[in-house]
Structure formats: C-alpha cells, structure tokens
C-alpha cells in the first residue's frame, strides 16, 4: 500500500476515506483535518483561551499536542480521580499528563478529587445511590462539574475534550436504541456557553479512534494504554465493538451514522415535541446550573450533604 501523496510505503490506511498515507504525510494530514473542523464548526478562534481536559490517554494528549502545534493557546486540566485498583491507574495517568506538559512547555492545571472533596471517586461511588454497582456515572458527574468549574473560575473561553468519532457514535447508538430524545437533542460537537456553563467542544469528533491511535503512535506520544479498570465490560465499549464490526464490513458506516444524525437533527428530525427549553436554576451551593431548584446533583452527592 502506497502513500497517496508521495508514493512511499504507507503507514496508515483509512478505508473510510480510501486514503493511505506515510508517516510524514499522515502527521501533516491529521492536524490539518482538525484545524478544518475547528473552523467549519466554529469551535474557537486563535487568541481564545482553551482548556483541554486531559486524561493521560491517547486522544486527549494527542488533541493537546495538535492544538499546541496549530498555534492555539491551550492549557491542560488533569483531574485525579483516585482510581488505583492495583494498577495505579490515576497516578500513572497523572504522571504521563505531567510529563507531556513538561516536555512541551505547557501549563497543566491539576485537580485532586480526594484533596478537594475528601473522597476518591470509588469512595464517593460506594457511598451514594448513583454509584451503586459501578462508579462510572459518579465519575462522569464529577468530571463535568470540575471541568466546568475550572473553565469558569480560571477564565477560559472554551473547554475542549478528546472525544473521538467512536466515542460519539457509541453514545449516539446507545441513545438511539432507547430513543432518548432529550439526549439526542443535546449531543453534538459544540455545546454553546450558557449562563454558568462554559462552551464545550470536541475537535476530534470526526476522527476515528483508530486514526487517533495512529497519530499517538507515529508522534511518539506516551499515553496510558490500560483501560480504566471500571470501564472493562462497559456498555460503551460493547457498542464500540459492535460498530467496529459494522465498520469492518462497510467502511465509513460509523462516520455516516454520526454525520447523518447531525444532518437529520439540523433538518428538524427531533424538533416539535422535544424542543422544550428546560429552565435551569443556579445551585445555591456551587452556582452551577441545575434542572430543579435546590442543590445540584454534584453537591447533593458530596460528603455531609
């Protein structure tokens, strides 16, 4: 297989694009694609302050690397969740994130959940109804709260996460199986800022997870390879595997599934009954918006509350 640009041996073949590239041209092509999507979907502009949520994984570190190379003003945010489970998952993720920041001269904000809220994610989950069985729901809630708080408190214009196409397609697949209209209305690559909530963007939303892995490997980015111990056997991974089987037989199916969803929604597929603007109220404790009057879900979960 040969590189379409130079004819040398290809390193990455993207069947969904009928495009094979060598290392050199892949490392040029992928950031250019991301720059194109940032502009096309009006995510942010040069000069705006970007906070990149980094987990130590391939997607978020690659996103940070690419934004930095593209000349954006991007700082990192690492949230230490306190997940150990015998493999020191959180401490290793933090080490890799800090090392990436140091090696590239970038600023990394670190929030330690145990130091700030007196409990790790597994401890919080073990104590609350929301965390019964698995801590993933609690973890998601805490991360969303902290990301928004840091973005708002430190004056960032936008929060960028490393969600790739496979992440988005798996969520869409899950929401479609249950026809969760409210979630389908909200899912997208750009969530505009609203009072109390920072603008959120997903610059990798059109890139396959396999493409992001290829970038991390070719760029030599050291990332945490282990899955989160609590994510093993999760529904989202199961959906990703199902979609990969589909993709294997029909290259481009994942991308088409997600992009045609965005297009259908734009044309009003979910409009009429679902388009009810939910009234939000500020939480009396943290000030972040919540759907019902009183404490938000995050503050209700905290120890002593």
């Amino acid at each position, binding site marked *: 297989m040969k590189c379409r640009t130079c004819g040398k041996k290809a*390193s990455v073949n993207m069947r969904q694009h009928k495009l*094979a590239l060598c290392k050199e041209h892949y490392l040029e092509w992928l950031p250019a694609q991301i720059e194109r999507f940032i502009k096309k979907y009006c995510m942010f502009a040069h000069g705006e302050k970007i906070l990149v949520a980094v987990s130590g994984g391939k997607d978020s570190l690659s996103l940070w690397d690419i934004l930095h190379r593209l000349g954006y003003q991007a700082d990192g945010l690492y949230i230490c969740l306190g997940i150990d489970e015998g493999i020191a998952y959180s401490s290793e993720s933090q080490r890799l994130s800090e090392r990436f920041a140091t090696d590239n001269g970038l600023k990394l904000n670190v929030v330690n959940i145990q130091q700030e809220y007196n409990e790790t994610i597994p401890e919080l989950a073990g104590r609350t109804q929301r965390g019964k069985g698995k801590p993933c729901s609690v973890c998601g809630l805490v991360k969303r709260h902290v990301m928004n708080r840091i973005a708002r408190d430190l004056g960032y214009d936008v929060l960028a996460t490393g969600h790739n196409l496979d992440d988005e397609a798996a969520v869409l697949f899950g929401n479609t199986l249950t026809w969760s209209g409210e979630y389908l209305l909200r899912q997208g690559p750009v969530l505009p800022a609203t009072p109390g909530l920072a603008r959120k963007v997903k610059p990798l939303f059109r890139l396959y997870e396999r493409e992001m892995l290829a970038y991390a490997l070719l760029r030599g980015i050291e990332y*945490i390879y282990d*899955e989160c111990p609590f994510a093993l056997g999760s529904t989202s991974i199961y959906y990703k595997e199902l979609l990969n089987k589909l993709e294997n037989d029909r290259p481009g199916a994942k991308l088409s599934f997600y992009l045609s969803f965005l297009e259908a929604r734009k044309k009003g597929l979910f409009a009429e009954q679902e388009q009810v603007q939910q009234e939000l109220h500020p939480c009396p404790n943290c000030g972040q918006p919540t759907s019902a009057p009183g404490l938000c879900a995050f503050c209700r979960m905290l120890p002593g509350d």
Partner: protein
Amino acid sequence: MVKIILRDKEYEIHPGMTLLSALKKIDILPEAVIATRGGELIEEDEILKDGEIIKLVAVISGG
C-alpha cells in the same frame, strides 16, 4: 513462525500470509487494532515473514 502479541495474549501463525489473513485466522477485527513491527506501523497487505514479532496495539483504551 510469526508471533503476534496483543496485550497479554500471544499467537503463532505460519509465515507467508498477509497481516489481514493472519488477523482473520486468530479472529481479531482489523478495525480494533494497529499492528506494529519493530516500532513501525504496518498495514493489512504486509506479508509476514518467518521469525517476525508483530505487536498489536488495541484501539480502544482509556475509559
């Protein structure tokens, strides 16, 4: 023989087949991995030679 490694699993296959055929033989979805040989990425049409060690990197990681 060619040795193929994915996480803590090892497979041995006969040389002379393409990476794509080898992955099919050991029932690994090509979409789910990237294959490397000596640190270099290799593609599906690569013919595997005797004595080679192919390391597969799982696409899904993180959580």
